[in-house]
C-alpha cells in the first residue's frame, strides 16, 4: 500500500475489515470475479511459465522485470546471504522437537534477529538492504527446521543451485529431479504475493510503527501460521489423504455437503471464481503425482474439487491454492506439518514489497474500537 495514499472516505465494510479499501498499491491486482492475478501487470500464468523465483521476487520488490545484469546482481546478493548465524541453528537444541515446526522456525528467526547486521537502522536505505538477507536466511533456517523434525542436521547450501532448488536440496539432502524443482518453483512464483491478506496486513501494521523489515516479516509469519491461513494447506491435504480412492471421496463429500460441512482449501474471501493459482499448479500436481505412482491422489483431488465446486460454485466457493500445494509437496518428501513453510518463504516477498511501498510516507496504522460495555460503574 502506498503510504501517502488516502483511502476513500466514507466507506462501508464488514467485520474483519471486509470490503475496506485501505489505500493504493502498485504491486498486484487481484480480480476475484474473473480469477486474474497479476504482479506489477504480469499475469501469474505468464510468470510461472516463463520466469524464475529470483526474477519474480525482483519484479515484485522493484516493480520491473530485471535486466540480465540486474538479475545477476540480485542472484549473487541472494547467494551471499545463504549462511545465517550459527546461533540461529543452535537454538533448535533449546526447544523440544515435539513443538510445531513453524514455532521452531519462528524461534530460529527471533534468534537470527539478535544477530542481524545494523539492527537498529530503520532508514529507508537500510530497509532496502534487508529483503535479500531475509529471503535467503529464512530459506536456510526453514530447511534446517524441517530436517530437525527427523533429527537430521542442517545441510550446507549448494551455490550452484537457484533459490528453489537450493531450498529443496537443503531440506531433503539430495537434489530432486528437474521436474520437481520446476513444480516447486512454480508454487513459489504463484504464491509470492497476494495483496493485503491478513499476514501482509499484519506486516504492514508493524512496519507502520517504524520497526525493521525483519520484525514485520515475523508478524506476517505469525498470522500465516494460523489454521485459517497458511495452516489450511496442511488441513486440506490431511482431508484428502484420508481417502483410499475417488469413489470414497465422492461419497463422503456428497454426505458432507448435505451436512453443510466446511472444507479446508475451498472458498476464499477474495475469489468468487476459480483461483488462478490453482489453475497454474494443477498441471504440475498431476504430473508429479503420476510420476510417483500416486494417480489415485490426483483422482481424489479432482473428485473432491468437482463435487464441491458443482454444489457450492454458484455460491462462489471454489478450490483455493491451499487445496493443491500439499499434493505437490508431499511426493517431494516434505513432511505434512511443514507444508505452510514454502508458502511462507514465497509470500514474504509480497509482505516486504508492501512494507517498502508503504514506508516512505506511511502513517502509523491505528484503527479504533467501539466500546460496547457498561457505563461507568465507579
Amino acid at each position, binding site marked *: 500500500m502506498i503510504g501517502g495514499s*488516502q483511502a476513500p*472516505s*466514507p466507506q462501508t*465494510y464488514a*467485520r*474483519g*475489515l471486509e470490503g*475496506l*479499501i*485501505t489505500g493504493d*498499491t*502498485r504491486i498486484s491486482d*487481484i480480480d476475484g470475479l474473473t480469477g486474474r492475478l497479476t504482479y506489477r*501487470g504480469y*499475469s501469474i500464468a505468464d510468470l510461472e*511459465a*516463463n520466469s524464475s523465483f529470483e526474477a519474480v521476487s525482483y519484479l515484485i520488490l522493484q516493480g520491473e522485470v530485471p535486466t540480465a545484469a540486474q538479475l545477476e546482481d540480485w542472484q549473487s546478493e541472494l547467494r551471499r546471504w545463504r549462511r545465517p548465524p550459527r546461533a540461529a541453528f543452535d*537454538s533448535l537444541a533449546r526447544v*523440544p522437537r515435539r*513443538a*510445531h515446526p*513453524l514455532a*521452531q522456525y*519462528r*524461534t530460529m528467526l*527471533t*534468534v537470527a534477529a*539478535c544477530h542481524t547486521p545494523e*539492527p*537498529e537502522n*530503520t532508514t529507508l536505505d537500510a530497509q532496502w538492504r534487508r529483503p535479500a538477507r531475509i529471503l535467503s536466511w529464512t530459506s536456510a533456517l526453514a530447511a534446517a527446521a524441517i530436517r530437525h523434525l527427523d533429527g537430521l542436521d542442517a545441510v550446507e547450501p549448494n551455490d550452484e543451485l537457484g533459490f528453489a532448488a537450493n531450498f529443496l536440496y537443503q531440506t531433503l539432502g539430495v537434489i530432486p529431479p528437474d521436474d520437481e524443482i520446476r513444480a516447486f518453483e512454480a508454487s513459489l512464483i504463484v504464491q509470492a504475493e497476494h495483496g*493485503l491478506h*491478513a*499476514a501482509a496486513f*499484519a506486516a504492514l*501494521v*508493524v512496519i507502520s*510503527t*517504524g*520497526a525493521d523489515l525483519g520484525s514485520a516479516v*515475523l*508478524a506476517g509469519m*505469525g*498470522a500465516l*501460521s*494460523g489454521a485459517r*491461513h497458511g495452516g489450511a494447506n496442511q488441513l486440506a491435504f490431511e482431508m484428502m489423504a484420508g481417502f483410499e480412492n475417488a469413489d470414497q471421496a465422492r461419497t463422503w463429500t456428497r454426505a458432507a455437503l448435505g451436512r453443510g460441512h466446511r472444507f479446508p482449501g475451498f472458498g476464499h*474471501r477474495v475469489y468468487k471464481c476459480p483461483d488462478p493459482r490453482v489453475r497454474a499448479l494443477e498441471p504440475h500436481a498431476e504430473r508429479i503425482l503420476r510420476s510417483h505412482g500416486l494417480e489415485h491422489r490426483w483422482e481424489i483431488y479432482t473428485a473432491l474439487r468437482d463435487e464441491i465446486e458443482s454444489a457450492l460454485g454458484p455460491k462462489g466457493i471454489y478450490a483455493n491454492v491451499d487445496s493443491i500445494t500439499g499434493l505437490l509437496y508431499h511426493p517431494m518428501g516434505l513432511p505434512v506439518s511443514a507444508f505452510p513453510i514454502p508458502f511462507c518463504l514465497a509470500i514474504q516477498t509480497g509482505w516486504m514489497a508492501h512494507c517498502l511501498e508503504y514506508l516512505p510516507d*506511511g502513517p502509523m*496504522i*491505528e*484503527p*479504533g474500537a*467501539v*466500546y*460496547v*460495555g*457498561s457505563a*461507568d460503574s*465507579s
Partner: protein
Amino acid sequence: MRYKYLVTTLPTLSPSFDWRAERIDWPVRTEVGRGLSGVIATTTEVMWLDPASANLTYRGIPVETLATDNSFEEVASLLITGSMPESDPPGYSAFRDQLRSSRTLPSDVIGLIRDLDPKTHPTRLLRAGISALGCHELSVDDDLSGDRHWRELRIVGQVAALVGEVAAHRAGRASPVFGPSDSLAESVLIGLDGHRPDPADTRVLDLLWVLYAAHGLDAPTFTSMVVASCLADPYFNVVAGLSALRGPRQGGASEAVLDQLSSLDRPSSADRLVRRIIAGGEPIAGFGHRSYRMPDPRVAVLRRELAGLAERRARPEIFASARAIEIAAEAALAPRGIHVNINFYAAPIFHLLGADAALGPCLFAVGRTAGLVALVREAMDTIRLVRPLSRYVGPPERTLPGSGSA
C-alpha cells in the same frame, strides 16, 4: 436495523464522536482517515478511551482510581476476566496463582537467552525468549484454539519473568531469585537491580503497569488481533505484538525522552532547549498523541510519582528537569493542541527504578500484555479473518518480453 448504518455514515473522525454504542450491526459505514483512523476494527467491553476528555476506563472504572487502589495483578484480572478481586475472591486467588507460577522458566529458555549477546536490544532478547517458551508450552498436536484462557494468562507472567531475566543478563548478573509469593512487580525489580525492592518502588512499578495496561488498538494489540484472526497460537500473537512494540513511533519513545532529559544541564535552560528543538523542526519527545489533543490525565498521576521517587533516590534534579521541560514545552506546544503524554514521565521513572533506556519498552511490555491478552481473548469469540483491500494503481496488464502469449 442493519440498513440504518448503510445509509448513515458514522462521523468517526469528528472529535465529538465518542466511540460508544449499545452494539454494532455490521456492516458499518464510517469515515476513514490517515492510518485507518476512524475505522471500527472491533467492539470491546474491556476499555474505553473518551476522545473528548482522554479519560481512560477499564471495564467502566477510571484508570486513575485503579492506579491508586489496586495492584497490577488485580487490574490484569479485571481486564482479562471482567471481575474485580473482591467480587470473586477464590477466582482471583486462582488467577493470581496461575500468573505467578508461570514465571518458572525452563532451563533451556534461560540458556537460549544467556547464549545471546547481552548488548542485543532487550526487546529482541524478550521476543526470542517468548518464542522459545511457546515451543515448550505447546506441541504440534495441541488444539490451538483449546484452553486459551489459562495459556494466554500464563503469557503475562511469562513476559514478566523473561523481562527480569533479560535485565539480569544485560547487567551481567545471575537469574533473579524470587518466590511464589512475590508479585510480578517484585520479581521484575529483583531482575533490575539484584535486590529485594523497597515496597514503595514496587508500588510505583505496579502503578505504571496499571496506567499502561490497555490503550485501545495500539500497534502491538492490533497486530496481535490480526494474527489471532488467523487462529494462530497465542505465542505467535505475542511475538508479533512484541515486533510492533518499539518502532520509533511506538514503545521506542521512552528512549528518546531520556536522551532529551540528559541533554539538559540545568532546569533553568529548559526554555532554551525547547526553543532549539522546535526551531530545528524536531518533535519534543514525550509530547503529542494522535488519539486526542488534550492533556493525558494519566500524566498527573505519574508526575506525582516521579516527584516522590526522585526524592527517595536523592535525585530531585531529575524531577526538576522534567518538570521544567514540560512547562516550557506546554507553553510552546499547547496552542497547537500538542500536550505532554505518558511516556514523558514514565521514562525517567523506569530509569530511577534501575532500567536503562533500552529496557524501557520491555518494562512497558509487561503492563501492555495484560490489555493485549484481554482484548484479543475477547475478540476471539466473534473474530473474522482480517483482510482489507487495496486499490490497484500500477501498470496495466502486460506480457513478459519473449513470452509467446499470456
